[in-house]
């Protein structure tokens, strides 16, 4: 297993390099630059800025400079948030996004998994229909609708929870954004677990357990272990997406995460910020896909990586 993990990590390097290269030139193809404001800057100022940020060099030169810096772990300065480096922006934002995303993921797995399992055991009952209905609801109502409704009900009418803000990560401030983030994931996990549990409960080896008169919790444990496999492969990319923040949720609840940098970086042609977020997401995706593969082998003994 260890050689497999090492090999996968090594093979991630060219992938990452390719992503960086493509993203670097792609954002440069977009018209405009980081200093094109509505009122054009004076030519002299512009020239100085371009020199300071090394934008006066040729494109291949800039590329080599960027890759060189990246290899030293330097994401460079932000072009838009002038007083910050990209590393500083991530250092302050990433813990916020990861806390929210991690909690949302945990909630989604626990609640979605439970609902899906219960629904599978009571297939075609009222409980089952309720879970399937909730699943459809969670997937179809967009988060920019759910979030304000929750803010109005729990923040303004009942006044139980704050409407927004990070507040140093206070539990009360986390509740609403985590619910909004988790809702669609609960829906997906519940539906997937329900479908694969129904399949698992019909399988021959579960019939064997039933014929042996084993208690329900044993049957559930065995069925669930087989049924989580498809969910695990879904959760890899989903976790990468959740942990790197959500633009909508962070904007609505006024949270200082990294999610909004995706949009702001691209709109403001903040080249280093765009590159930083690309690298960040790519690393998360690569790491979580590796985790999924490792988890797969842990759950299913027939999967062996040599």
């Amino acid at each position, binding site marked *: 297993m260890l050689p497999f993990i090492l090999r996968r990590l090594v093979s991630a390097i060219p992938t990452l390099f390719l992503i960086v290269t493509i993203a670097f030139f792609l954002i440069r193809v977009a018209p405009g630059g980081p200093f094109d404001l509505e009122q054009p800057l004076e030519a002299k100022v512009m020239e100085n800025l371009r020199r300071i940020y090394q934008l006066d060099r040729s494109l291949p030169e800039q590329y080599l400079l960027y890759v060189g810096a990246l290899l030293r772990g330097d994401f460079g300065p932000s072009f838009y948030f002038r007083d910050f480096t990209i590393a500083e922006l991530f250092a302050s934002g990433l813990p916020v996004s990861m806390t929210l995303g991690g909690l949302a993921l945990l909630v989604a797995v626990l609640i979605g998994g439970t609902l899906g399992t219960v629904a599978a055991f009571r297939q075609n009952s009222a409980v089952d229909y309720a879970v399937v209905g909730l699943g459809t609801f969670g997937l179809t109502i967009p988060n920019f609708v759910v979030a304000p409704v929750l803010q109005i009900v729990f923040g303004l009418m009942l006044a139980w929870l704050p409407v927004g803000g990070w507040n140093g990560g206070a539990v009360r401030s986390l509740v609403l954004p985590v619910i909004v983030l988790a809702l669609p994931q609960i829906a997906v996990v519940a539906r997937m677990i329900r479908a694969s549990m129904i399949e698992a409960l019909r399988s*021959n*080896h579960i019939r064997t357990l039933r*014929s042996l*008169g084993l208690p329900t919790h*044993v049957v559930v444990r065995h069925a669930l*272990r087989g049924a989580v496999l498809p969910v695990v492969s879904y959760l890899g990319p989903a976790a990468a997406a959740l942990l790197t923040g959500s633009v909508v949720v962070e904007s609505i609840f006024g949270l200082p995460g990294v999610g909004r940098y995706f949009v702001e970086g691209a709109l403001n042609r903040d080249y280093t910020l765009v590159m930083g977020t690309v690298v960040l997401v790519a690393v998360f995706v690569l790491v979580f896909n590796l985790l999924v593969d490792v988890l797969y082998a842990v759950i299913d003994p027939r999967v062996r990586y040599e």
Partner: protein
Amino acid sequence: MTPVLSIRGLQVRFRTGDGILHAVRGVDIDVAKGETVAVVGESGSGKSQTMMAAMGLLAANGTVEGSVRYRGEELIGLQPRALNRYRGSKLTMIFQEPMTSLDPLYRIGDQLSLPLVAHGGLSKRQALARAVELLELVRVPDPARRVNAYPHELSGGQRQRVMIAMALANDPDVLIADEPTTALDVTVQARILDLLRDLQGRLGMSIVFITHDLGVVRRFADRTYVMRHGEVVEQGATAALFAAPAHPYTRMLIDAEPRGRKAPVAPSAPVVLDARDVRVTFHTGSGLFGRTRHEIRAVDGVDLRVRAGETVGVVGESGSGKSTLGRAVLRLQEASGLVRFEDRNLMPLERGELRPLRRRMQMVFQDPFGSLSPRMTAGEIVTEGLLVHEPALSRRERDRRAAQAFEEVRLDPSGRNRYPHEFSGGQRQRIAIARAMILAPKLVVLDEPTSALDRSVQKEIVELLRDLQTRHGLAYVFISHDLAVVRALADEIVVMKSGRVVERGDVERIFEAPREAYTRELIAAAFLAAPVET
């Protein structure tokens, strides 16, 4: 004597998309202590569902009425928790599918411990120690190591032994065995059956055998129930039942054992297929980096000669290379050696050059469900070959030929516009045969054409094949693991094992005086010879 298990007026119904399916219609079965009872019937007779209902294992759309009593205690209507006091401890069951009946994600030892912990009150550690003993009891080699293995690391026969060990873990009163050996090779079948009989002698439990195999019934069962369409049509002591079957259906079942011998072929008949030193090698593992490359010699220097009107039976267990040989002589599989069909050497021919020859060498496969396209009508399936080989035919002419082919395999020609799923297994196999016959072949390779069918249907297909052969002077290569069918059809028999020919000879000679131990084992396992006293 009061029975251990007593089934009275059992009814099972399933809600299906097409309405209510009445699978079991008032069945009475008694099982006495230490007795072996066989429940015999063809697929769809309700024999399995009767026992599934008794164990509370019906599918979610099934309902049950009637009474199942274990030592006087009513089981029908019990909540699962109450039923679990009996299931797995007093009443246990093993199933037809040893490959899928164990959980692939848990170690053998963990699975074996489950019933010990749940019913026997053992600790996890005690249960694991007992699991090793149980594996030893069912004669799994090296039990101390196997207890840590996962199911995919065991063979089918070993998995069935593990299933038996799980069923016996709590010393049950009744073991229900639902076609326990059907999915296994014949020699493995025989060993599993011997094991069950031996364990029964030692542990004194009752066994209920659900089976379609009359050979097993005759040899093992004290009493037999014959089921058909959800009802018991006849029951009685096995010996008496076989000696004087009262019900026509029982007579038909007993009679359905393939019988008769084939008339010999004139030695002057022309040789249709002459294959010499056929070899097929498979490579496994990642050959790219040249590290873990394994070579499997699936067929290792086999000769095969078939004359017009002659049948050569190729027998052997799964993995013996018999199917690969069949494909190799038709050049459906890359192989080395020499294969002459009529007067042409097939080996150097390109695809295009082979095509005109292909119509005279056809193949029929085992699976009558998988080998017919579900989206084409039976008529289209049967005439598809004509599109390639006689493209000039008009649609009307093709349809006429389809009707003719249907009649030839004794199917109602009006059914040619229906789709495969509307036909039974036997009818589908007839369609597959018609598809081969419409091209007027000289050589037909039949790969287990009767193995997926009920005995009574098998008999009809055997008769059909025999009849077609006499009428058209066909040469057959008949690949099968079923010696009873081969004996009824073949002139010569080739016994294969691990890609090589172990023994070959006339049918009579092979069955009367087999020279090799392996051949003797195959014959004994098929219950064709008198049971060997042990």
